[in-house]
């Protein structure tokens, strides 16, 4: 669709992006049920880093082929094929303008706000809203269709600055169990 192409074009000039984020989960009763803050970084088309601050230090790293997700509360690192993990974060879709996952969505646009509705075969049934202020990606909203909304608001957004390679490397913390899901679903 016209709007999908326009959104992909808006993302095209971004080769790297880094930002602080605040992620808020609103429950079906409209109550704020979780708030995380942290930093994220992207190197398009396939590298992503996301870390939330204490006391919930969660880490998600996609190095182009493998996705690592560490949750200290569960004392475990989950390792999965990046291609099979699109639902782990909406930013994984925004990373790559050509990824097949775009085919899962119908896109409509209103000014700086893009509404992505999943079609029937989409793996994730969440609808997404991607908002820009001027030319900068500013906010991603996920709606699960059952009343839960998750708002991820970006600040201090810097695009196309150099990012250290190590940003997208993940080291398995000592003592953490590893749940390697690669090759689970052939």
């Amino acid at each position, binding site marked *: 669709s016209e709007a999908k192409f326009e959104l992909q074009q808006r993302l095209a000039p971004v080769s790297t992006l880094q930002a602080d984020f605040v*992620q808020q*989960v609103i*429950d*079906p009763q409209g109550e704020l*049920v*979780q708030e*995380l803050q942290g930093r994220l970084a992207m190197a398009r088309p396939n590298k992503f880093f996301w870390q939330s601050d204490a006391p919930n230090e969660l880490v998600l790293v996609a190095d182009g082929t493998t996705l690592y997700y560490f*949750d200290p*509360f*569960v*004392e*475990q690192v989950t390792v999965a094929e990046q291609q099979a993990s699109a*639902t*782990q*974060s*909406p930013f994984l879709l925004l990373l790559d303008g050509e990824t097949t996952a775009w085919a899962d969505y119908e896109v409509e646009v209103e000014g700086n706000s893009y509404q992505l509705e999943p079609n029937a075969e989409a793996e*994730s*049934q*969440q609808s997404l809203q991607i908002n820009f202020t001027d030319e900068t990606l500013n906010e991603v909203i*996920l709606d*699960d*269709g*059952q*009343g*839960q909304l*998750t708002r991820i608001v970006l600040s201090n957004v810097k695009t196309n600055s150099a990012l250290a390679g190590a940003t997208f490397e993940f080291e398995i913390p000592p003592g953490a*169990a590893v*749940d390697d899901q690669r090759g689970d679903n052939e």
Partner: protein
Amino acid sequence: CAAAPPEIPQSAIDRNAAERHQQAIASLTDWSISGQLALFNRVEDDRDAVYLEWQHAPGEMRLRFYHPLKGTLARLEEDLTGATFFDEEGQPYYGVTAEQLIARIFNFQLPLQLLSEVITGRRPDGAVQLSYQLHDLDGKPYATLNRYLVATTSEKWQVELSNYQAEQSYLMPHQLELISPEWRIKLKVSQWKL
């Protein structure tokens, strides 16, 4: 943050401080929490975790299991008439109790009844080998329960409660562990609503 108060065995505890806390929380029958539940199978070294919201009232409980980025995963409701589990698509499954439904659907004995009794810090009947922590609230000593053993019909559990903080006028735990020979269940409470 300040180190947790030291652990005091039952014998040394000031009985009034222990009773004062138990009486304070005895009236707490309506509460809700949001947080994260982690289930460790100690036999097969398998583990799983889920975020949850849990509303509890006498004879009634409502749970919503969710993931911040994947949305609502399931809902579970129980009242005096029975229990209903709704899967990700909202498909209902019926049962007598929430605990039975979870056991049937996930073949895992999540001791929801015991969890709902111990999460508030209340001393369940039959609890033994108790140890406490001493706190000061409005100038009075309160002894909160932080470790003990208790048995349900199917399992013996070691219960550990920690990270007590004042919530309105109550001292509430924000971390709970239930350990049995086969399972380790961790519950982290990020929000209490009383």
